Each structure stands twice: as C-alpha cells, then as structure tokens.
C-alpha cells in the first residue's frame, strides 16, 4: 500500500503568531508536558499520559498536509510553541473539521484561538478549496464554545451522548458548529468595515 500524497505545508503569520505544519523535530518537552496535564487534556476528552519525544515525532509525521493537518501555533516574540490545530479534510464534500489545543496555559483567555483560526479559515477557504468548516466541541468545553460564537460560527445542533468519557466512561454531549465559506467572507468584510 502506498502512502497518501503529501500536500503543501501550512506557513502563515498573524499579528502575534506564526502558524506552520509541525515536523518531527518539533517534538519537545513543552508538548510532552501538555499531554500529561489534565487541565489541558480534560476539556478535549483526551486521556493524560506520558508521550515520548519519539512518539510525538512519529505522530507529527503521520499528518500529510492533505487529508490531515497538524499545525503548530508559535508566538512570534520568542518563537515558543504554545499549541496546535488538527484539521481533517473531507475532500469529497469540501469540508474541514477543526480541533485546537492551547497547551501553554499562560496564553489562555488571550484570544489565541480566534486570531490563529481566522488565518486558517482564510487559507482553507481561499486557497485549499474548502467550502465548509466544522467544529465539534464537548458541550462542557465552555471556552471553546465562546470562541466559536465570538467568531461567528453557527450552532447547528447538539449531538447527545456522542462521545465516551475518557475519565469515567459516561457518555458526553457535543455541539456541532459550522461556518460556510460565504458566511466567513461576510464576517471578514463586516470586520474590515467595523475597523474603518
């Protein structure tokens, strides 16, 4: 079986952040620490665990920048890696599903997600053929829900009992948020007019 074709890596900048596809060499102690921090992993329903650098390097290399992207968020002032997006693309339907982790807690509450995600939405909608973006946060992940709403995503529904809790085996609810390309362009235009 041949590996899927690799796509163009992401390389973007916002006012405060650099966004780029992660490479095996980005595996670091910082990233390892996020994986074992319940405050970081809990809202994502991900088990905390020790991950070796080798594991993280292999994980980074499993993304192809075509169907699956692993995109690091780096603050520009010091170049520190502070989090990452995972974007999964359904090319047949031109839909991309976004997930995000801000691992560096000193950046929580500082509007990292929406600044970075705005640049990614521009990239995926305008340069990578995507027509709809989706996000599926757990309903108890209140900060993530705020970010979707503040950015203009639409709540499309609630998926009851959609996930099995990694903590206690109970069933967890998720929201589905969506954003069409045209809607994003209208939000962008309105923002520019508001700033004018």
């Amino acid at each position: 079986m041949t590996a899927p074709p690799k796509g163009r890596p992401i390389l973007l900048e916002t006012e405060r952040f650099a966004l780029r596809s992660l490479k095996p060499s980005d595996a670091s102690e910082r990233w390892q620490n996020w994986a074992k921090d319940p405050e970081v992993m809990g809202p994502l329903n991900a088990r905390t665990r020790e991950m070796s650098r080798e594991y993280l390097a292999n994980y980074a290399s499993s993304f192809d920048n075509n169907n699956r992207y692993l995109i690091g968020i780096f603050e520009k002032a010091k170049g520190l890696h502070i989090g990452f997006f995972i974007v999964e693309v359904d090319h047949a339907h031109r839909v991309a599903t976004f997930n995000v982790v801000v691992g560096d807690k000193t950046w929580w509450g500082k509007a990292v997600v929406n600044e970075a995600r705005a640049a990614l939405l521009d990239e995926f909608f305008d340069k990578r053929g995507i027509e709809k973006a989706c996000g599926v946060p757990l309903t108890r992940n209140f900060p993530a829900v705020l970010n979707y709403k503040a950015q203009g995503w639409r709540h499309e529904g609630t998926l009851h009992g959609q996930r099995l809790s990694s903590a206690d085996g109970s069933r967890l609810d998720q929201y589905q948020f969506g954003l069409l390309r045209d809607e994003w362009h209208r939000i962008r235009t309105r923002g520019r007019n508001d700033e004018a």
Partner: protein
Amino acid sequence: MTKHSSARQFLADAIHADVADIPHDARIGSFARWDSLAHMHLLLSIERHLGRQLKPDEAVQIESLADVTALVEKNARTNV
C-alpha cells in the same frame, strides 16, 4: 437587586470587574472582556446559582446578558 443587574453581577464577577463597568447590552463578540475564560467562569457561576448543571441547549443559547436574565428568570418560575 433586579434580575438584570444580577446578570451583570454574574459577568462582573467572571471578569473581576465592578458591575458599573459592565454594559447593560453586553454580549459575546461586542464586549471584548467577555472572553473564553470569562465565559467559563460565567457559566459555572450560573450553575452554582441554579444549583445544577446547565443543559446543553441552555448553555449554548447564552450570548448576552439578556439571555442570562431570561435563563435565571425561567429557572426561578419553575422553582416557585
């Protein structure tokens, strides 16, 4: 204290501000200090006030102070 000033108090507490600093028409996206962490503190504070977890369909509808007021009033009516 009116229900609406109570909603302002919830948000003021969430952002560690004086209630006088909270606009009466504060809503997500138009009041910058209503950020992701403030939203978490706000909803947890409402849950403590109600004495129960918010249902997903309740939590997702909270976008403004008016929504907070409506939720608290509805809960008060059902508890009468």
